[in-house]
């Protein structure tokens, strides 16, 4: 256990070959790159310095907000991701986060308690009706968002452990906020891997770094045992094989040469790669029959309309995705934003 220093050296080499600052941002590695460049005597671009300032302010606000949250709630409160993961980094200031993910057993009561203490809800209510957390909360004057979860975010094809189950294997939070809990490092590493598969399967280098950084504080055997118990073995071993190959000296599996082409050298995924990898994720993360069933559901979800989206909007969105298939994701997002602002 303990931080594997060689991982950080590998990471330095990877960011050194990144195709652009935008690619570093897309992979969540821009703060790490800035810090290493400065240490090497290189000039840090102003846009990254601005990112560093913003991240520093958020990191300064985090313990203040967490103390407010802990003080406002009865019952057990668990912090996932964000500062809890940052504490496992060789340099915590290089792990960026924008929100605080709180897991509790009675989220509605906690949400009410926080609102009564001055927190304000944001976002459209309908967007948070059937997802893993309630409407985001902000405390006026502090720049971080708090999200109260009733369960961690997992892909639909994995069984999600309950808040109670995770609480039973909790440890004190690394943030040192009194009374605040965190998932055990083994559970946390698994949750981070699952979260990554739910959003961008093996899409972002930071997700792999997070998993290995947290896992370095656990026994690997304990994580494997938990993955077996949760029936997450395939997802876990696939994640770990990718992380160990990209950030360590493990052999590179054949599938990673296709799936992880955007990781070495570090570049943004294209729109086509992003869609393909999200749809095909169950094939790599589940076994046999479960993979086939989940793939069917994944394809159905891909073809479905977003909530509230008209048929015309769905066609327009799909058409843009096809037209931009080989465009970087960020360029695609900017184009979509510009077009929607123009009303096209």
């Amino acid at each position, binding site marked *: 256990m303990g931080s594997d220093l060689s991982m950080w050296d590998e990471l330095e080499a990877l960011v050194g070959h990144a195709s652009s600052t935008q690619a570093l941002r897309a992979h969540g590695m821009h703060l790490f790159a800035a810090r290493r460049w400065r240490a090497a005597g290189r000039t840090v671009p102003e846009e990254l*310095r601005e990112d560093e300032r913003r991240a520093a302010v958020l*990191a300064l606000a985090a313990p203040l907000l967490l103390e407010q949250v802990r003080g406002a709630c009865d019952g057990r409160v668990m912090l996932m991701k964000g500062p809890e993961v940052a504490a496992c980094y060789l340099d915590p*200031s290089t792990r960026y986060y924008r929100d605080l993910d709180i897991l509790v057993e009675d989220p509605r009561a906690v949400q009410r308690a926080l609102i009564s203490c001055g927190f304000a809800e944001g976002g459209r209510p309908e967007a948070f009706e059937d997802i893993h957390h309630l409407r985001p909360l902000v405390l006026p*004057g502090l720049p971080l968002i708090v999200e109260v979860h009733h369960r961690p975010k997992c892909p639909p094809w994995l069984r999600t452990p309950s808040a109670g189950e995770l609480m039973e294997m909790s440890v004190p939070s690394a943030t040192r906020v009194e009374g605040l809990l965190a998932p055990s490092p083994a559970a946390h590493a698994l949750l981070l891997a699952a979260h990554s598969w739910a959003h961008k399967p093996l899409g972002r280098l930071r997700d792999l770094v997070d998993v290995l950084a947290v896992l370095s504080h656990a026994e690997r055997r304990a994580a494997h045992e938990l993955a077996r118990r949760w029936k997450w073995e395939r997802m876990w071993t696939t994640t770990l094989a990718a992380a160990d190959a990209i950030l360590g000296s493990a052999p590179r599996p054949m599938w990673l040469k296709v799936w992880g082409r955007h990781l070495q050298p570090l570049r943004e995924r294209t729109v086509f790669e992003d869609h393909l990898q999200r749809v095909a994720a169950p094939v790599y993360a589940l076994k046999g029959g479960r993979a086939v069933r989940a793939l069917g559901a994944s394809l159905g979800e891909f073809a479905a309309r977003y909530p509230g989206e008209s048929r015309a909007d769905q066609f327009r969105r799909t058409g843009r995705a096809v037209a931009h298939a080989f465009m970087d994701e960020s360029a695609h997002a900017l184009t979509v934003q510009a077009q929607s602002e123009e009303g096209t």
Partner: protein
Amino acid sequence: MLQLRTDGLNWRQIDDEIVALDSAGGAYLAINGPGALLWAPLVDGATPEQLANILVEAYGIDELQAAADTEAFLGSLGEQGLLAQ
């Protein structure tokens, strides 16, 4: 003796810059150059003369200029309520 507030004022150094969060006032500050140089002594407490001497040594400017710069910086901190009463 002048000193930065200790309650609700949190900060960290990034390279040659200070990034501070004043949670009481809900303000964020980025301070670089001479201001960043004077920040650490002000955390512990220092007189205007001591601060001006730091500028003289660091930048090779004359004492009058250093005293004026120090006064301007302290005035700015005071306006933002960052100095202890």
